[in-house]
């Protein structure tokens, strides 16, 4: 391979793609009567995993939270670790879509739909976790400030409440953002549809979009404003998740670095998942012309940046307990890196920081297989990081007489598998019925001739 042939030099869109072929190709994936075989296999597996979640949740609701491995002192277990994990993945989607819209990055146009689809699917998985985690799940709505005869309101000093509000806003905003971005494409699909029923379906969804100049003017300003809201919001939502920990008195949690730490984690893990899904969509739907080596290269670089930022947080995570005059923080940290949970610590350092350094090499960034593997490693590594933040610190906190351990049960693992099933099922469904590349935005690139 020619080393001068850098992936960054690849075209944003292959020359053969025209405005017409783009519309037809992307719409065709949605409108074709039969889904391809690989879609059925993928969706089948996802659905099976999702059913695991249904069973695990039913078991949980019938028997109580005790079916999980949580105990005292480790009162938060997989559910919270996975909540943070999923919300980071969701945030990663928003970062790609909103943040890089504001920077006018050309690689974002062909990938933002994948990122946003991922964001919504992951947000669903994230959203169920804190509710399942409650002792009395049926009363989760008490966190919502609604007027009631008892005149009882939520406790606004609690980081959990901030988190609840933030998450609620974020999910609602994400849905609107996604839908707004989808409008012109839905109209395109409607226009491409041959069958009456599909025309009706997409026609209704398109809300009467005709593509008039006025439509476009309003649309562009709305979309820009939404991006301008979403970008800081995604930073805030993950920072507030970080405050759940930073606001606590627990060893290893009570640290101001958590908000940026969690945001950095969102960047790297979100990018990793977008890369994996992009590769799947690119090959599954034959979008090699629209999504090129250029896109993968750009995302690989940002993932590398995320890894470096996260590495910085890891350094501070270690520095804090060493520098602070708190024997308890030090004990907890030493136990994290050398104690019972040491394998998870070193695994996450390896997967999130050390291996991603390969991305410095252009040859790695242009290899889809390597990108896919590194990304998968990061996804696993980020899960381990969430586990590592939640559990070892609780297991070794202030009161030595109450140090404990956490043994996840079968139901903990089933819930993890099930949440992955929920995510994938949603993603596969949206992939089948909604355009996976933003037709309107790629058109703009072709039209303006910014393909190179």
């Amino acid at each position, binding site marked *: 391979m020619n080393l001068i042939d850098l992936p960054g030099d690849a075209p944003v869109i292959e020359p053969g793609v025209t405005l017409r072929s783009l519309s037809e190709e992307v719409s065709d994936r949605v409108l074709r009567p039969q889904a391809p075989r690989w879609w059925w296999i993928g969706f089948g597996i996802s659905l099976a995993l999702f059913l695991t979640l249904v069973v695990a949740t039913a078991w949980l609701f019938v028997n109580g939270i005790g079916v999980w*491995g949580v*105990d005292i002192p480790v009162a938060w277990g997989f559910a919270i670790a996975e909540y943070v994990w999923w919300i980071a993945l969701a945030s990663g989607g928003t970062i790609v879509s909103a943040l890089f819209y504001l920077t006018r990055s050309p690689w974002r146009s062909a990938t933002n739909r994948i990122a946003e689809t991922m964001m919504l699917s992951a947000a669903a998985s994230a959203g169920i976790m804190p509710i399942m985690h409650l002792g009395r799940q049926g009363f989760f709505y008490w966190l919502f400030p609604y007027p009631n005869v008892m005149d009882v309101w939520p406790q606004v000093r609690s980081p959990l409440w901030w988190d609840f509000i933030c998450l609620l806003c974020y999910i609602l905003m994400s849905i609107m953002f996604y839908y707004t971005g989808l409008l012109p494409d839905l109209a395109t699909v409607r226009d491409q549809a041959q069958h009456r029923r599909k025309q009706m379906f997409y026609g209704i969804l398109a809300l009467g979009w005709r593509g008039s100049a006025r439509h476009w003017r309003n649309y562009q300003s709305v979309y820009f404003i939404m991006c301008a809201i979403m970008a800081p919001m995604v930073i805030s939502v993950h920072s507030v998740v970080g405050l759940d920990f930073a606001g606590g008195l*627990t060893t290893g949690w009570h640290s101001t670095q958590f908000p940026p730490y969690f945001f950095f984690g969102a960047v790297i893990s979100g990018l990793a998942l977008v890369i994996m899904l992009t590769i799947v969509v690119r090959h599954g739907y034959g979008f090699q012309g629209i999504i090129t080596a250029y896109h993968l290269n750009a995302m690989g670089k940002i993932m590398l940046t995320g890894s470096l930022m996260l590495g910085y947080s890891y350094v501070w995570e270690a520095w804090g307990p060493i520098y602070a005059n708190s024997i308890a923080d030090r004990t907890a940290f030493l136990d994290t890196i050398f104690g019972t949970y040491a394998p998870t610590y070193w695994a996450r350092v390896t997967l999130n920081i050390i291996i991603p350094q390969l991305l410095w090499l252009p040859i790695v960034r242009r290899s889809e297989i390597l990108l896919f593997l590194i990304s998968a490693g990061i996804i696993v590594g980020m899960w381990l990081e969430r586990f590592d933040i939640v559990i070892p610190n609780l297991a070794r*906190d202030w009161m030595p007489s109450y140090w404990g351990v956490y043994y996840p049960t079968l139901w903990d693992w089933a819930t993890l598998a099930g949440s992955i099933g929920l995510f994938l099922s949603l993603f596969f469904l949206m992939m089948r019925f909604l355009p996976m590349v933003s037709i309107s935005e790629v058109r703009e690139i072709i039209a303006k001739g910014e393909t190179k």
Partner: protein
Amino acid sequence: MSAPGRNYWRSLEELALQLMAASMALGGLSACGPEPNPRQLLPYVEQAPGIVPGRSRYYATATTQDGYATGVLVAHQMARPVKVEGNPDHPASLGGASAIMQATILTLYDPRRAQSIVGNGQIDTWESFITALYERRDRLLARGGDGLRLLTGNITSPSLAAQIAALQQQFPAMRRHQWEPLHRDNEFAASQHAFGRPVERVLDVGAADVIFAVESDLISAVPGWLAYARQFAARRRPDETGGQMSRVYAIESTPTLIGAKADHRLPMRPQEILDGMRHLAAAVGAGPQEWAQSQTKDASWLAAAAQDLMQHKGRALVHAGREQPVEVHLLADAINGALGAFGKTIRPIEPVAVAPIPHQQSLQELVADITAGRVDTLLMLETNPLYSTPVDLDFSGALKRVPLSVSLALYADETAEASTWLVPSTHEYEVWSDARAFDGTVTIQQPQVRRLYGGHSAQELLAVLLADTSPDDYALVRGYWQQEAQQKGRGNFEAFWNESLRSGIVNGSAAAPVTAAPKSDIAAGLPPTVPAETAITVLFRPDPLVWDGRFADNAWLLEMPPNGHSVRAPFFVLPGQAPDCITLPLGFGRRAGGLGADVGFDAYPLRSIGSPWQTKAALSKTGDMLRLATTQGHDRVAGRDLIHEGTLAEYQKNPRFLEQQRNEESLYPSYSYLRYAWAMAIDLNSCIGCQACVVACQAENNVPVVGKDQVLAGRVMHWLRIDRYYSGSPDNPGIAFEPMPCMHCENAPCEVVCPVHATVHDHEGLNLMVYNRCVGTRFCSNNCPYKVRRFNFFDYTLKNDRQAESWNPEVSVRGRGVMEKCTYCIQRIRTTQVDAHREDRPVRDGQIQTACQQSCPTQAIIFGNRNDPSSAVARRKASPLDYVLLEELNTRPRTSYSALIRNPNPAIESEKA
């Protein structure tokens, strides 16, 4: 049933009948079941004056352990006994109540108790049992009682003793045998030698300036230990005693509670203990001087202790545990004699139990007689020999040869299953009886409730043999005391009877001291020292909570973490154990009975008649791994400032030597408390780690039992726990006990993180839990640095196999998915406040006692109003020894601790340095 409306009058009549039936069933709840005499206990039809729902009424009675009584007050809520408190007027309680005593209330209601008479494997009736026994009685009468045997534990009941005496007259050839697995044969054998007859010792621990404890159960199990612990602790609080403290030396193979509290403690092999005692005896002039020549590594330690003892003649006390061999007891007596302890710190009295014959010998004779075919009728009264006899006696084989064996038992235990007849016995709270305490004081036990499951008492059973076919426990006991009152000339019997029942003690019934003086040369003639062996020794010790196994069915005691006592098989390596010694707790591994069946392992199969307390053993690895259910995560403070500790010398030099600058600045305004600010102070010097408070809390606050799998899963529910921390070398560590209730922090970390306001600060400073509002985020538990919050991971309360009426109606039971924790017994606070409010006066200091405080034998826990500077709690908090845990977190707890002060002997200290 007629169609509605068709026959109006008839259906009304039916309705009336139904209502009457229902009111009979509800109103006369305790009228169900067989009840021979309906005289004493009546259900309310109308609310009786003075009975207020939600208010406790207390009735005095006593619980017994190994026959020895401890006075209790049973709290009744709407005529249902719900809680056991110590009787402050009773000399064995002084208001304290042990874990075992308090757990009796759970046994009372235990649905697993034996409920039917079983004859030859078939459920049968009391009448047919009486018929069978009566038939046998006729034959026995003809033979003068030949072949009739009684097997009992210790008997201290005067009425039962009188009954047995009457039996003996009718059946001259009858014999009574006794067996307590945790007998004190060695102690009595020694006193036989020293005094020429068996005597009981009543100790004055408060008068002892120096205590030398030889694996002693002085403050953990000896009859009267609650009182001894009270006296002991009173001498260990330097800021209340003007800077004075007693000094305690302990030598022991298995860690004991007094060993944990000792100023100097040496772990020793059993043989080393014997050598050490010889050394000590020689050093105080109670034995030949050559004993002091032995080259023991602890010679200088013993010499210093001996000198200290000698300097406190008449104010010193040596106490050896029941497990020590006769030689050690003899040496202890000899040393006590030389120190002039008899008559000063030790008061010998006539034995409290009737005929304190050696239990081992007694049981051996019984088995020999059965084997020889000389026994055809065996009555076993509330004893379980099949489980607890030494293995080499083969009691189960012998029992099969007895044609008529009767087991009067609370549970269908091992013995009951193998006997011809099982007669369910009554619980102590269901029957009239009497019993004596460690000092001889008699309590007349009155029933607290109608017999829940039928059952019969020992007195009733023996009455049948005395030709009384419808025995009445009330008449039997009252009859005895009527006679006694006549003989003693007590005057008005009714007044005496009522006063005895009310106060829970029979006035002037304490035993008088015996006049006999001990021999001067007690130690003479002891066999020479044998060289120490290095083989591994297995020591048999009672489990501090299930005792000899008789409490193994009690869920509260099963789930209580034992403190510093036992090395478990499978192994639990415990700091402070003597080398080469393995301690096996007795009392587990029950094969039949209630809840305790198949829990743990049974150590009795290793115990032989010749050596009841220790044996040589070889160890082999099985290769099996077993997770042991322990409740403490880590045994050391791990660098945290949790235990403040110092010496008496330092304290005398500067009482403020441990004091630290408190830094309570804050950006936020603090709460103000206008009237009351409740607070607690816990004295680490007084806490002996006996777990009484933990059970008290569990009983008072309806804390559910979770079961072994949940303990393993880290989900114990105790609101109050006792942390035990070791310091120093694991061979001979310092031990500190630290009771941990909720700290009720001023800046409570739990309060700010609850998103729904389920845990809040009240106007009197209590940190409250609103169960109904809790959604179960568990953030509060994460945020609690003291880890005192407990979560209902499952519906533990529902899962508890417990009668509904046995829960405390004053405290909500908690459902699944909510957090709970110590409330400072808010129900008691509010009840007292309401009373004070009605009388238009403030709550007086000491009027509110939390459950833990009330039960504590050593008064380690003080509760009260911090706002009142004259209150006991405020005074203790003002002490320079007072400190709070994890102060650096600025939680500002309301529960504070008094530092642990030890009083080491400077001679030994300087040598160590």
